[in-house]
């Protein structure tokens, strides 16, 4: 059960949470300091220099050079503080949105108003996400309709889920239990009901849970089936190139030269586009032969096709384990 007692501070249940909270407390310190400073000065001056007080010295002090120094001080001090905050926040942000290599990859499809998850071994679930404790999990997300946003407060992560483009985020749970999962981007009538829970369990229990469901093909396997069913094989042989088509092995994560002279990295979005709008980015040296599969495959099938193509790839040079 989700712990639903009253509290003033959210649970920390991921490796990121304490780090984000540390910055938060620093900010809180800055905010309290300045609020108290300003409030105290206002109160102090208000009492000391109230109109009725005739005894106080109001002779104008020699402003001028002295005042200029003050002005510079209260520009520079906030600047220094805020640059510190910026650097701190940016480094954490970079961490938050850069999944570590080797993370467990869970695929997420958001649609009005539910979350669909598929685990690497093929098990699916809706509005609940089981993850193992102490293991990095990467979410690969896309939406079927409008923008949604994946939000798990206890993990301090959030990322918009877009139509037409993959986005991702990751976390590593540090506490077993159940946590809220919210849709944070307004997505229509039942936005506030597009919620679910994240269930963090021991890795062994996770394996057991995976085994417990009715078996689905792992995405890469399902993708392989689709690859055959959709007759991709008529042109693309699984490994190596035919004369007509570029090879698909060793594609993901590598640079692709296009016919217009540009070079792009074959990332998820590129693969997706290659299937839906093959003409958009032509591989140099190949004809515009491939038909568009727009409308024939849905987002989940696309994800499976991608999983298959990715499984063909040898690791890209930059992807070498850290």
């Amino acid at each position, binding site marked *: 059960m989700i712990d639903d007692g009253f509290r003033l501070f959210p649970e920390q249940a991921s490796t990121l949470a304490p780090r984000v909270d540390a910055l938060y407390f620093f900010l809180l310190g800055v905010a309290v300091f300045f609020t108290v400073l300003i409030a105290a000065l206002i109160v102090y001056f208000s009492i000391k220099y109230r109109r009725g007080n005739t005894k106080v010295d109001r002779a104008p002090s020699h402003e001028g050079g002295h005042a200029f120094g003050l002005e510079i001080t209260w520009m520079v001090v906030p600047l220094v503080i805020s640059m510190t905050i910026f650097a701190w926040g940016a480094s954490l942000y970079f961490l938050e949105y850069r999944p570590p290599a080797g993370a467990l990859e869970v695929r997420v499809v958001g649609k009005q108003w539910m979350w669909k998850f598929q685990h690497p071994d093929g098990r699916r679930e809706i509005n609940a996400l089981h993850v193992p404790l102490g293991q990095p999990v990467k979410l690969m997300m896309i939406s079927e309709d409008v923008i949604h946003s994946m939000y798990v*407060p206890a993990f301090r992560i959030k990322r918009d889920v877009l139509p037409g483009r993959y986005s991702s985020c990751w976390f590593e749970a540090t506490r077993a239990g159940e946590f809220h999962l919210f849709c944070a981007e307004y997505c229509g009538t039942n936005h506030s009901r597009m919620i679910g829970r994240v269930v963090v369990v021991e890795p062994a229990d996770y394996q057991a849970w995976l085994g417990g469901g009715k078996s689905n093909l792992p995405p890469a396997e399902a993708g392989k089936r689709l690859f055959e069913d959709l007759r991709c094989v008529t042109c693309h042989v699984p490994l190596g190139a035919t004369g007509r088509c570029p090879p698909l092995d060793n594609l993901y994560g590598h640079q692709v030269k296009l016919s217009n002279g540009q070079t792009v990295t074959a990332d998820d979005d590129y693969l997706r586009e290659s299937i839906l709008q093959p003409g958009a980015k032509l591989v140099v040296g190949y004809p515009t032969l491939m038909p568009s599969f727009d409308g024939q495959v849905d987002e989940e099938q696309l994800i499976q096709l991608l999983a298959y193509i990715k499984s063909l790839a040898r690791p890209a040079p930059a992807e070498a384990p850290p």
Partner: protein
Amino acid sequence: MTTIIAPETAAPPDPNQPPRQHYLNAGYTVRSWLLTTDHKRIAILFLVSITFFFVVGGLAATVVRLDLMTPQADLVQTETYNKLFTAHGVMMVFFFLIPSIPSVLGNFLVPLMLGARDLAFPRLNLLSWYVYTIGGLFTLYAMLAGGVDTGWTFYTPYSSTYSNTYVMATAVGIFITGFSSILTGLNFIVTIHKMRAPGLTWFRLPLFIWSIYATSIIMVLGTPVLAISLLLVAMERLLKIGIFDPKLGGDPILFQHLFWFYSHPAVYIMILPSMGVVSEIVPCFCRKRPFGYAFIGFSSFAIAVFSFLVWGHHLFVSGQSIYGGMVFSLLSYLVAIPSAVKVFNWTATLHKGSISFDTPMLYALGFIGLFTMGGLTGLFVAALAVDVHVHDTYFIVAHFHYIMVGGAVMGYLGGIHYWWPKISGRLYPEGWARLSAILIFFGFNLTFFPQYILGYLGMPRRYHVYPEEFQLLNVMSSAGASILALGYFFPLSYLLWSLRFGKIAPPNPWRAAGLEWQTPSPPPTENFAETPVVVDEAYDYQRIDGFAVAGSGAAASPRSHREESTHG
């Protein structure tokens, strides 16, 4: 009314003389109002209309708060709830706060403060009101006919394809109203450049004028981008094209870029004028020159310019490139510096002042405190990693209400009270006014402080139903909102009451500096009997109070030479 009204300035009305001609009694027909080109009358027209929209927006907020008392959906249906917060956001932002100070106080005061007879383009000014009203009616129609449920941000593709509410009509309404903003801003810039009285150099201008000028820059350069982004949404719906449609390779995030290119600067449209008001009130009730005049003035400019460089901080989790996010975060901190400069300078102005606590001053001090709290939480949300957690939660809701309600609305009310004698020729009841200022301050904090906590706990915004553990804080917030509503109800009532029963106001009840106080209350249609000539800096309170200021606020006021020249 208060100690500072020097008795000799309140000339008793002479029953034998015919009443003095002024802008209010220059004509009583509806026509004389609806076809007026007098900036002061247009200001009144705006005052009436924006008050109307404020009440409408406030009523929507009231229902929202009532509904959120319980975690379930029991008061209204979810569709309705979504329409309510959208209506609330749209009304409050586009039809109340953005026009509020510029169109009411700005319209009324800019020519007076400049010693001009009117704005540069009086007919354009009237047109601005009509455009505003037509846009408002359009939007009101949309709200009544069925409502819109997109949130005030109109994010695509929900707004362009999926929502089946009155998005078109609302977008068109806001589009039209945008022209009102543009026309007003344009008019102010030209007026401030070309119509200052002889001797009124830039550095003698009241700080209110500086801030209105900065605001106008944003209005002129930002609003058209909002216009085009809403037009694109409207066209997507009307012509069934797909500029933001992912199926055609369109990018929904492009809409967010365009929208926030305007709407971030727009938040400074809302706050800068209030900062200007505070910069007027604080010196007056401290009886001294503002500390760091030039710094306050230039920081307005800095805010206006920097404000255009930070819009991407609304897109930190949206799928914008994370490098883009970093740039925007960095720039967001730069825009915080000029705000800091202002806060520190106002506080320093209190030093060695002769401070009295009339209602406008209470609002001004409240503004400083609440704006500081809201602004400082702006630092939280500009910090990338923290924003990932608090984005689209109640933390954001609290952040912007602290600035917009605690800051901007407080400043607006302070300004209305400060210039009410000038505008209406009447004094308001001071006791009631102070009471409601204090009520608003406490009600406000009770409403929105719990929302910070809720936000960090993770309660998403725009949620009709929410987990039970958040209820207690929500109940507190709703309780605060009722106090707040009461606090707003009082000024609405006693200001209206004062129109008829208030004491007659002297030309300069606060013995304030500034050209607007050198002409009778209410001012004559042509503003000044003859064009005033300015020979010294603004805020010369030492001269007004004479030299025996130390301690005794009630020192007799020797008439300044400016006064003499205008009463000739």
